[in-house]
Each structure stands twice: as structure tokens, then as C-alpha cells.
């Protein structure tokens, strides 16, 4: 069995008396795709928010490769290797597709004021390198010919695909994807799932929130079913799908 990349223990979060996370624990292994399913309000997105510093949990621990995650600000969480996408699409609509990818690269020399003015060549060289890798990433997912279009000119499905590429480009090792295929056309779903399936080969692990059970079964190694802020069941996609508690919760 592969070793654990992320270990989460008994996360707690209350919002005005509602227990959004009620002692939620789980483990994400290296190079694995973990599905996270559960009814609306089960706490899935809150879990992502807690891991990435957007929400401060009231209790519990989370360790990413041994480093404590809880209490970090969002940008620090991203820098140590935990990046995410959002349920509502977040892209810089008025920048080009390529720029959207470029802006996510980590450790850019040209993001330091000193370098901008006193080491322009270093910046330019690095920028040229980033541009190549960004083009490469876009090529892989079939967005290469759109690279100079504004992000807002893409179709909804393409925008979702782009936000996945951006998340990958942050260099993070653990990608938390919040409903990456919700609301898009079937053929685009296939392209996005294909891209997700390729992530472990790059050394990435993925946590995937999705309501589309078909998509979950296609790409996930394991699935965690969550309800009312806690883990109800865990196993292979088949096992979880046939778990009576899961069936019951989804029928409610």
C-alpha cells in the first residue's frame, strides 16, 4: 500500500450551531484519486476550505506529508503543496488563457519587485520557461489553440478544464477538486476525467468532490462517503455504491 500524503484527524467546524465538520477523519495516499461524495450540506466543501486555510476549524488536525496544515493561510497552504479548485468557477476572465496558467506558477522571479527592476534578464528567462511549460500543459488538454483568447471567451466546460490546468500549474502535490465536471456537456466531461486520471502519473494525489457517481466510479481509486460532517463509509467505488447507508442517504 502506498504511504499517506494527507492525514486528517477529527476535524471540527461549527457554523452558528450547525456542525459542518463533525470529527471528520480521512487519509489520502500518495498518487491516489480519492472521491468524496455525500449529500448537499454534508461538509465536503467546508473540508476543502479547512484544509486550504479559507476556514479555520474549531478542532482537529491535518498533516500534509508530516507538515501541519491547519492554521496556515491559504497562500501558504498552496505553497507547501495543497491547491484547490472552486465549485463556482474562478478564473481571471479578462486575462488570456495562457496568462491564467502563467499566473499560477510558483516561485516566479518576476513577482519580486527587486528583480523586476534590477534583474530583468533573470525574470525574462524564467518567464520564457514558464511560457513553454504553460503551453505544454494547454497542449496536453487540447486548449493550445485557445491560449491567446480571453478566459471568458471559452465555453463553460473549457473554463473548468482550464481551472484544472491552473490548479496543476501551481506545482502543488495534492489537488482538491470541487465538482470539476458539474454542469458540463458529456464529451467535455470525458476530457476532464481523462486529465484527472493522468494526474497520479505526475506524482499528484487528488481529492475529488463530485455528485456524478458515474464519474467517480470511472476515475477514483477509493471513495469516502460523508454525511452530516462525518465519514459514513469508505472503500472502493463499488463497495461504497452498494453500501446500504449510502443508498439510504441518497434516497432521502
Amino acid at each position, binding site marked *: 500500500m502506498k504511504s499517506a500524503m494527507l492525514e486528517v484527524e477529527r476535524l471540527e467546524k461549527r457554523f452558528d450551531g450547525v456542525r459542518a465538520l463533525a470529527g471528520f477523519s480521512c487519509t489520502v495516499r500518495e498518487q491516489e484519486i480519492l472521491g468524496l461524495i455525500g449529500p448537499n450540506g454534508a461538509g465536503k466543501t467546508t473540508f476543502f476550505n479547512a484544509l486550504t486555510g479559507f476556514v479555520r476549524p474549531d478542532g482537529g488536525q491535518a498533516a500534509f506529508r508530516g507538515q501541519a496544515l491547519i492554521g496556515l493561510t491559504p497562500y501558504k497552504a*498552496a505553497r507547501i503543496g495543497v491547491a484547490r479548485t472552486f465549485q463556482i468557477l474562478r478564473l481571471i476572465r479578462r486575462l488570456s488563457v495562457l496568462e491564467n496558467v502563467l499566473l499560477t506558477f510558483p516561485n516566479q522571479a518576476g513577482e519580486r519587485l527587486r528583480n*523586476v527592476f534590477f534583474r530583468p534578464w533573470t525574470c525574462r528567462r524564467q518567464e520564457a520557461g514558464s511560457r513553454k511549460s504553460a503551453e505544454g500543459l494547454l497542449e496536453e488538454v487540447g486548449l493550445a489553440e485557445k491560449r491567446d483568447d480571453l478566459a471568458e471567451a471559452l465555453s463553460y466546460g473549457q473554463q473548468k478544464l482550464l481551472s484544472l490546468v491552473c490548479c496543476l500549474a501551481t506545482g502543488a502535490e495534492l489537488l482538491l477538486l470541487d465538482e470539476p465536471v458539474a454542469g458540463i456537456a458529456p464529451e467535455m466531461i470525458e476530457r476532464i476525467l481523462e486529465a484527472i486520471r493522468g494526474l497520479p502519473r505526475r506524482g499528484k494525489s487528488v481529492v475529488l468532490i463530485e455528485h456524478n457517481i458515474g464519474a467517480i466510479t470511472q476515475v477514483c481509486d477509493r471513495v469516502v462517503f460523508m454525511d452530516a460532517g462525518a465519514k459514513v463509509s469508505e472503500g472502493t467505488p463499488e463497495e461504497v455504491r452498494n453500501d446500504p447507508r449510502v443508498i439510504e442517504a441518497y434516497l432521502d
Partner: protein
Amino acid sequence: MEYVLHILVLIGIYVVLSVSLNLVAGYTGLISIAHAAFYGVGAYVAALMALNWHVPFWLCLLCAIALTGVLGAVVGIPSLRIRDDYFVVATFAVQVIAVSIMNNWTDLTGGPMGLPGIPQPEILGWRISSHVDYLVLVGLLGALALWVSRRLVQSPFGRALKTIREDEVLAQAVGKNVAAFKVLVFVVSAGMAAVAGVVYAYYISFIDPTSFTVMESIFIISIVIIGGAGSLWGPVVGAVVLVTLPELLRFMGLPSGVAANLRQILYGGALVAFMMWRPQGLLGKCAFERKSAKA
């Protein structure tokens, strides 16, 4: 002729001011009403150093930039933690405090009487005294401000600023230290405003608090908005338009009392008109549109 040159020098000073505010307001999406305060602090620092210690121009300039930059950080670090409207209010407070210090710390600033008799500057033996000299000086500094601004906004640093303007949540999520970017650009902007202040102090050779009030801040914001926030040349166009247009009123033969009031009405009217029909300004493409939802 003198008059035309005077207008051109003023345009140059406002180009520097609005280019610097554009970095903060146009590219980063932070509306600061403290810009006249930084402009004023720059002017006072240079005037005091020149009057009391006969410090050469270039040294006054550097000290004014540095001190105003530090002030920018002092103001920026606490106020940039708060968002949008609250940030506007915080900078407004800074502006009011700055003017009241200029008015009331009489021993240092001369209070409402101001500081008269600021000497003519000299740079490497070039004595700057005529309008033409000042026009050359202000032209050079304006070009420098534009160059700095261009360098900045076309770099990855500038790309991060635009990301913050468009979607702060996304900027954080992809690992950008949003607070650090905001403080840095605020400091650069304050330092640049100080340059305009220094030139103004030497040029007019007299400064008093009335030149650095909140009205002045709003005037600079109007230049940025009308010219086109978030575009490189927008502030230049805005400065030309807003400085020249009211001057044209002079030639309409109105009594001076009426003309002065008409000028304010004109600014207000223009600002409202632009907000309604062309919020992106003359050259702008995008700034100040609806922001994306917060997380």
C-alpha cells in the same frame, strides 16, 4: 506663453500623481483617498530639508521618496487587511489626519501660513528656474514614472496585481501573498506621489496645506477614472483633459467666482457621466466593474 508652459508643468505633475495612483487603484483595484497626503508629505519633506538644511535637490528627492514610502507602509500594513469600502474609509482617515497635522504642527510646517521661499533647485550644475527648465524636469520624471509603471504592470508582479484586483480569493488559492503584494504596490505608489510633491514644492516655491486636501485626492482619482484606470496611458490622457478643460473656462469671460464654482461642477458632472456611461474611462478596458463573489 508662460501661461501655456505653466499648464504643461501642472499636467506633468498630475501625470506623475495619477500614474502612481493608477498602480494602486487601476491595477490592484484599491481605491485610495490618501494620495494627496502622500503628495503633500513628499512636498513638505523636500521643502523642510531645503529650507532648514539647504540640502541639494536630488537628496531632498530621495529622502522624500523614502520617507513617504515608509509612511505608505505604515498606513498600508494595517489598512490593507480590510476590504473594499473599509479600505476607502481608512485611507480617507489618513488623508484627514495628514492635513490636520500640516495645519496644526505650526512649528514644523508653518501651519496654514505654509512654507514660503523654497529655493530654486540645482541638479549637477543645472539651475532649474524658468518654466522651460521645469517642463524638462517634470517631463523627465513623468517619463520615468511611466517607465516604472510599464515595467511593473507587464511583469509577473503586475500580473499578480491584476489577479488580486479580479479575484483575491483565487490569488490566495494559487499561492500569492496578497497582503505583501498590496503593501508593496502601495509603497511604490506613495513614493512616486512624493516625487510629484517635491517638484511641486520647488516649482511653486511655496506650499501650504490647501494644496494637499481631500479635494486634491479626489481630483487625482478623477484623473485616473476618466483617463482609464488600469491602462498605461489612461492617466496621461486624464491629466491632460482634466487640467486643460477647466482652464478653457477662463476664456469664456466668466467672473472668477463663477468660474471657480463652475470648475467643481464640471469635475463632479464629468465623474458622474463617466461612471454612468463609460466606467472604464477614456482609454481603460476594464477596471471597477463588478467584482467576483467572495469565497
